[in-house]
């Protein structure tokens, strides 16, 4: 097979490119998925004071600025070897919990919802948030908007801005909250708990109550047996803001846990010549290729991974849902990728309960929200769980605190290998012996992506909702058989 050279110009096109190679019989031999990576952030940050970087990283990604801000804030704390006071950590986690509620809600109703509530065979024009609201009722649309409003209000109160927070600095925050704000935040949190429970019930009634959907979820096409990672607290319960990253094997056995400063002992990056993005894998297991199994270092980081990598949820209502999740699906760990959508709702409930827990904590209104750093800055790592997976920020500075180097492992990067494997499986189901089923192909491939919730919005920087995709199918001599395109 010929070597493929990537022309640097392609990275500016801003869409996903997939190359499918057929073997001499006309079956899928290999697929190559090229993510155009938004590059230059690392060089852009060099020379900036490190306390600016968490505010700059807000703008890497229009989808989860809060996650980048928090990972950056924790990295900046680590660079200065400073431990923020308990109130600052709780306020940050409170902001973060409200953000998670907003993000998970939007994801489920606006975009995952259409795959299930409308169904993958529904007319294309109805498979969007309007179709969902039409089917479930306008009142629910109103609740979704209300939920987003509450979440953004909390982010604004603690973070200074509705979507792009800016109050985290090395050692803590620039401000705290008043008792009046605390009461408002608690009230909104209680509403969020009810809404999360309602959403789980909706999923139960509409999705789990429909055999066709259940078959789709449990089907082999989106199932892979890989390692799973996710942050857990000291009791091994899921935590989005802080803790250690737990790593479990495809049978559910814990390989270990690592703290931020140890991530380079656990995660390495594999390079392939045909794409800019590297493939993270577990160093202790080794890179064995794009394959499933206990001997392959491929791992996944998603809501499903977090549930698989933990021993449970830290709040009672979410814990009950966690137990129901696993008992329904036949035990731990669960490998079907489409169940990520359900796992996301379990997390939604936890985030809402945590919101109320933190808002009710007497320390939350304390004015001790900053520890002034005293040590010389050097290097630091901050890890949080972004809604779509473990997010790592690693900053290096000189002795004045001026940034000299930045390394980021973002959610989608973690999942690059699993996504590639899922795409191959999707392609294999639709291409046999030279026959290509073109209408279903792009949709199946997209559904494989959507389950992982990839950061395409950030890479393509295109209008929200678009997933520009170009799929080229080549025969075993490399000659183009077909090109399928959407939005590019």
């Amino acid at each position, binding site marked *: 097979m010929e070597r493929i050279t990537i022309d640097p110009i392609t*990275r*500016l096109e*801003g869409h996903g490119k997939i190359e499918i190679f057929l073997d001499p019989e006309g079956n899928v031999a290999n697929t190559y998925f090229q993510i*155009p990576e*938004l*590059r*230059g*952030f690392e*060089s*852009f940050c060099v020379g900036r004071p490190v306390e600016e970087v968490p505010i*700059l990283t807000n*703008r890497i990604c*229009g*989808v989860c600025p809060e996650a980048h801000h928090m990972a950056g804030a924790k990295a900046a704390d680590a660079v200065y070897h400073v431990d923020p006071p308990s109130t600052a950590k709780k306020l940050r986690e409170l902001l973060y919990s409200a953000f998670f509620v907003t*993000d998970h809600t*939007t*994801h489920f109703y*606006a*975009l*995952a919802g*259409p*795959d299930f509530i409308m169904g993958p065979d529904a*007319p*294309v*024009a*109805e*498979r*969007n*948030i*309007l*179709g969902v*609201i039409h089917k479930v009722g*306008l009142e629910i*649309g*109103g609740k979704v*908007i209300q939920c*987003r*409003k509450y979440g*953004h209000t909390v982010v604004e109160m603690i973070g200074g801005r*509705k*979507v*792009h927070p800016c109050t985290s600095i090395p050692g803590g925050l620039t401000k705290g909250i008043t008792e009046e704000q605390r009461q408002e935040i608690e009230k909104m949190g209680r509403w969020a708990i009810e809404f999360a429970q309602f959403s789980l019930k909706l999923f139960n009634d509409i999705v789990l109550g429909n055999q066709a959907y259940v078959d789709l979820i449990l089907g082999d096409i989106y199932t892979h047996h890989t390692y799973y990672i996710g942050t857990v607290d000291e009791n091994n319960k899921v935590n989005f803001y802080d803790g250690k990253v737990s790593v479990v094997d495809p049978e559910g056995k814990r390989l270990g846990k690592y703290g931020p400063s140890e991530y380079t002992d656990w995660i390495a990056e594999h390079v392939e010549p045909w794409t800019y993005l590297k493939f993270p894998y577990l160093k202790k297991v080794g890179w064995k290729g794009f394959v499933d199994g206990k001997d392959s270092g491929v791992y996944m980081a998603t809501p499903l991974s977090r549930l698989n990598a933990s021993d449970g949820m830290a709040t009672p209502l979410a814990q009950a849902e966690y137990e129901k999740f696993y008992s329904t699906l036949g035990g731990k760990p669960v490998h079907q990728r489409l169940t990520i959508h359900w796992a996301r709702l379990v997390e939604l409930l936890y985030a809402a309960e945590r919101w109320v827990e933190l808002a009710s904590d007497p320390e939350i209104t304390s004015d001790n929200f900053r520890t002034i750093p005293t040590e010389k800055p050097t290097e630091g790592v901050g890890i949080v769980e972004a809604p779509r997976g473990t997010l790592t920020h690693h900053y290096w500075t000189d002795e004045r605190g001026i940034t000299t180097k930045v390394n980021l492992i973002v959610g989608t990067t973690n999942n690059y290998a699993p996504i590639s494997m899922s795409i191959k499986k999707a392609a294999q189901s639709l291409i046999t012996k030279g026959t290509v089923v073109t209408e279903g192909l792009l949709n199946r491939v*997209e559904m494989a992506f*959507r389950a992982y*919730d*990839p950061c*395409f*919005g950030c890479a393509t*920087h*295109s*209008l*929200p*909702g*678009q*997933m*520009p995709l170009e799929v080229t199918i080549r025969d075993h001599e490399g000659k183009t058989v077909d090109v399928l395109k959407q*939005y590019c």
Partner: protein
Amino acid sequence: MDFSKIIIIGLGNPLLGDDGVGWRVAEQVRELCEVDLDCLSVGGLSLMERLVGYDRAVLIDAITTGKQPTGSVSLYKLEDLPDLSAGHTGSAHDTSLQNALKLGQSMGVQLPTEVVVVGIEAQSVYEFSEVLSPPVAAAIPQAVQMVMELLK
């Protein structure tokens, strides 16, 4: 029309080179007159939420049609721009502004009946930079002028 409530929104990411032009134009408009104005880096649902309570909205943003010279300034009606998520759940985090407006309107929320976009044809929106390319920077006065005309 004189009494209709209008909002001007500069859109874009100020760290992505030419994508920051929307903010630059909006900032100049802010210096020239008293009008409700905001600089945002959001789209879809979040952008719709910002338009609540207004009759008209003017959005200023970089655009990459690839069909006109860099620095061209054009006026578009929102409904004439392609709706890339009509029936298409490509992104897992949002929907198009057109869809989001329909959603809000269907729930009885007060949203603008007229949304126009002042688009500046951009060159480089994929690289991190705080500097605009020269043709895009040169287009700022023309874009400001277009917005001021819309406010009359």
